[in-house]
């Protein structure tokens, strides 16, 4: 298919349809409302459903119900909306249902602002809901990558029977870039007859499937949590994605940055190179699982003296970066949030002050 110029939010909606998702439940919130605007028009064309819930809390349980019945389903929201859904995300993870969540982050905490931010890193990767639950989290840095990640998210959610989140900042949603949609989704055959409450007649079976998150017997609860842990450990082995930049030669410093922020850093790295200063970068594409080995290996290159985590948040990812470096090198943070995106010149200033 030829390239088309599309807004990130619209491309995310189209990508979900092309991934075979015909159920979209959501509640509008800036800066992701164009997904709903796009799908309210597009879903009926493909025989799908867009249903607006009365709140994000309701939307979370609409997703749970549909996923439990074996439907491919997704939602999009932005930071405060995701907080309202977080209870249901924990239930969905406990009951092992596949749902795709897209969080186009805005500035926080509280109502914050509507401009791009990466302030939900810790929430997405470590504290999405109560109990021992985790999400697989992917962070796109372009509209094209947002499309690819959305299309990948559905099979991954089904492979692990676990919620998957696309964590984009407001700019990824609002920006227009050329995109090319992959023709077909590579998807494993569905195993949902084994667990979904999709009707015994339909699957010609006498066993009832049960989707639930209540396990009053402590041994059974522990077993369920061990099963969840085994999935999260498997994600750490099988699903890690990251992209290196300018790491072939010797570099004095290493930047770790994701999403829109990583693009600003890429420009800064090019400008520094022209100045004779070499800086490498690792861009995590999955935030959970975090690319521990890629960051550790890049940081331990003998020429590297300092590792900088650059974020549109007040120092969240830097905790994961420090875990990778294990005290062997200085690790520091630089960032801004809530729409005041650092410029390449500001990044260069920080690099020169701390590294060069």
């Amino acid at each position: 298919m030829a390239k088309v110029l599309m807004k990130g939010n619209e491309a995310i909606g189209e990508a979900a349809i092309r991934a075979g998702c015909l159920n979209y439940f959501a509640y509008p919130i800036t800066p992701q409302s164009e997904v709903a605007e796009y799908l309210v028009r597009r879903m009926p064309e493909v025989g799908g459903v867009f249903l607006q819930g009365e709140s994000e809390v309701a939307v979370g349980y609409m997703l749970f119900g549909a996923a439990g019945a074996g439907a491919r389903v997704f939602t999009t929201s932005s930071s405060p909306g995701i907080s309202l859904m977080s209870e249901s995300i924990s239930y969905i993870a406990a009951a092992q249902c596949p749902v795709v969540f897209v969080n186009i982050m805005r500035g926080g905490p509280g109502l914050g602002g509507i401009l791009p931010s990466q302030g939900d890193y810790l929430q997405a990767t470590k504290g999405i809901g109560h109990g021992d639950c985790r999400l697989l989290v992917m962070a796109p840095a372009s509209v094209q990558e947002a499309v690819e990640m959305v299309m990948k998210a559905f099979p991954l959610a089904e492979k692990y029977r676990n919620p998957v989140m696309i964590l984009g900042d407001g700019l990824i949603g609002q920006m227009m870039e050329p995109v090319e949609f992959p023709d077909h989704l590579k998807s494993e055959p569905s195993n949902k007859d084994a667990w979904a409450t999709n009707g015994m007649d339909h699957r010609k079976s006498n066993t009832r499937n049960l989707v639930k998150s209540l396990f009053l017997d402590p041994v059974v609860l522990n077993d369920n949590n061990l099963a969840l842990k085994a999935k999260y450990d498997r994600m750490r082995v099988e699903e890690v994605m990251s992209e290196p930049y300018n790491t072939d030669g010797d570099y004095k410093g290493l930047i770790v940055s994701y999403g829109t922020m990583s693009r600003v850093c890429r420009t800064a790295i090019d400008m520094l190179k022209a100045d004779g200063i070499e800086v490498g970068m690792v861009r995590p594409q999955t935030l959970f699982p975090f690319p521990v080995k890629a960051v550790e290996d890049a940081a331990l290159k003998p020429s590297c003296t300092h590792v900088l985590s650059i974020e549109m948040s007040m120092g969240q990812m830097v905790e994961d970066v420090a875990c990778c470096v294990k005290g062997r090198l200085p690790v520091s943070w630089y960032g801004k949030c809530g729409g005041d995106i650092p410029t390449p010149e500001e990044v260069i200033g920080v690099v020169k002050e701390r590294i060069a």
Partner: protein
Amino acid sequence: MQSEIMFAGFGGQGILLIGKVLAHAAMEEGFEVAWIPSYGPEMRGGTAYCTVVISDRPIGSPIIKNPLHLVAMNGPSLEKFAPTVKKGGIIFINSSLIAFGANRDDIDELRVPAVDIAKELGSVKAANIVSLSAFVARSGIVPMETLKHCIKEEFSKKPKLIPLNMDAVAAGEKAARNQK
């Protein structure tokens, strides 16, 4: 090689649309492009602006504080953004609504009475296309033919508007060529 063009004016002047048309035309020419809107808590009649980045290699930072060119459709936009334009860039001024200049001697100032021209063509709404066409003619950033093709595509669902907008392209191009 990378160019950044900022389009700025009142909400309702079709600022975001002409930015999108230029980004589309540059994409058709094989360039990497990004279109970045301002999306504050805007209201109708408030300010609207967007930036288009056109590059021959993957675009890094989409945040542009100093664009190469500016298309200013109203006075407040010119006042605010003229000082940010890079040396050697073009500053397009919609002189129907802006009585003053960019006050810079290191840029190429192009003054076109876009609103008056559009009124003569039959609709003030075409002032944005007049302006875009004048800017494209002056800068040569994409071929005029590609621009026309993309404007036709933009209005493909409202074909009645295509002749008016083709007149607007011709008038904008002529206005730019008539000015040294």
